């Protein structure tokens, strides 16, 4: 499907979706969804036979500091059978950096959202294992935020005792 056809179908399915300005999106299909009910909306996008967006390529966040809402969580969706892509963006305000997790829809959201939490401090509610992934647990702050200074140094953390602080903290569900 062409980007226009994808957008038309998304608007039929999800009346609350807002398309991005075409000159900003460079001809790609981009929609913004409200935070409320976004997991159901994503599930619709995945299961709709015409869209068939079976692959979640990536989850990331962009920090538009000074704009409201400040953060935008970005999902890159891809349909292998229909050969089209769709980018879904969900705004997250600065004073309430929570968003429902998409892990129930795509399992690839698991690590993508962990990295987004690590780098931007967005809390994905309902995520089964929201820990830091690239940085270490003692790290303070979220370095990809625009107000995180580039030259900030962190102290060395003491070595963890594997008995007192186990390195395998997950217990549920396994």
């Amino acid at each position, binding site marked *: 499907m062409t980007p226009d056809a994808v957008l038309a179908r998304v608007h039929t399915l999800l009346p609350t979706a807002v398309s991005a300005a075409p000159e900003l999106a460079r001809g790609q299909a981009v929609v913004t969804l409200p935070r409320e009910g976004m997991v159901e909306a994503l599930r619709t996008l995945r299961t709709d036979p015409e869209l068939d967006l079976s692959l979640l390529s990536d989850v990331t966040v962009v920090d538009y500091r000074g704009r409201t809402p400040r953060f935008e969580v970005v999902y890159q969706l891809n349909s292998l059978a229909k050969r089209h892509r769709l980018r879904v963006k969900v705004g997250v305000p600065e004073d309430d950096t929570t968003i429902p997790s998409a892990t129930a829809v795509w399992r690839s959201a698991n*690590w993508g959202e962990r990295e987004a939490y690590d780098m931007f401090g967005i809390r994905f509610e309902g995520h089964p294992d929201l820990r830091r992934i690239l940085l270490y647990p003692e790290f303070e702050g979220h370095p990809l935020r625009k107000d995180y200074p580039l030259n900030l140094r962190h102290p060395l953390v003491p070595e963890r005792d594997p008995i007192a602080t186990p390195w*395998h903290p997950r217990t549920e569900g396994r």
Partner: protein
Amino acid sequence: MASLIPGSMRPARFEETDHGESDVLEIQMGPSHPASHGTVKFNLRLDGETILDVDVEIGYLHRGFEKMCEQGTWNHCVPYADRLNYASPILNNVGFALAVEQLAGIECPERAKYIRVIGGEISRITDHLTCLGMAASEIGAISAGFYMLEAREYLYDLVEAITGARLTVTYCRLGGVVKDLPPDMRERLDFALKHTRSVMADCDRLLSRNRIFLDRMVGVGGIDAQAALDYGLTGPLLRATGVAYDVRKHAPYLLYDRFDFEVPTGANGDNYDRYMVRFREIEQSMRIIDQAMAQIPDGPVMANDPRFVLPPKQEVYNSIEGLMNHFKLVIEGQKIPAGEVYSASEGGNGELGFYLVSDGSGRPYRVRCRPPCFYAMAALPDMLRGEMIADIITTFGQINMIGGECDR
């Protein structure tokens, strides 16, 4: 198992968990383990030698790629992009350059596109040779591993002749490539590909029906197509499950719609299929290179667009306009109009995506790299549950986790 080790003899540091009849052993493997290439830690939960659960810890090679990209101009990011997947640096360069060009709305000249295809496919072969050679030597087939590294050296010599460096190539720019192919490219290429073909034929005989190799690879670390898609696996890992998803065919970029090549797929999604998919992709890449070398036209290798492309040095040193243009581009950067783009290309390990946001200043507002092996590593626990400890090595080897790309 509990009866073999008397309780009093058990080292105190291993936590005992009630798990039915047997004891669960928790050990950490890595971060610097001699049998695994790449710095990564596995927190294993074992029943004897069987893996009950594994928690993968990555991030040991995190260098802040995305944060650093926001500090310079668009061309400043190209050297960082080299260092993402250092087994196939040209592919990363090409992927990044394509994304920026799509954002800027310019195209590179025809010859540069052919050069990018040729360089990229050479890089794909070196990437696969690294993966296969390491995987072979890690399970004891040292000689096959060294043969593949030998072929890789011939290809690195070729990369050095084209770009001037073996690994840190920094070859692509916004609007083209830095320099043209060497004049004796055809002879160098014939030499390198001839050696690669003979090495591949040798390794095929050494490995593909080798009893020991088959026992270690067939049916190990498998994942089915549905789970693979759910986890966002791409590249050889997904194709091994039978899904023929290749970005070069799915949404042809550069000139990939002009070449005749196949997308090899497997059926079982196990380590042996991953090995065979990579093996056959090397042949396909050599086919593409041969076709591209036969078709390549003459012409410039850099676009002529003063807004984004640095002027030739001749103009910079000899004319005031060229000097000013150069100064503005270097100091202020390429003023790409505000907007955003997600551009995917087929990297060595799968879909390499760049999501770029520009705010109209000369610097990237946000550079996001979608690394293929990051998502593959997320699926590793599912592949390993129920396998033996020794299978970590083959499965991890076939995922081909490249620290620079996974941890950025």
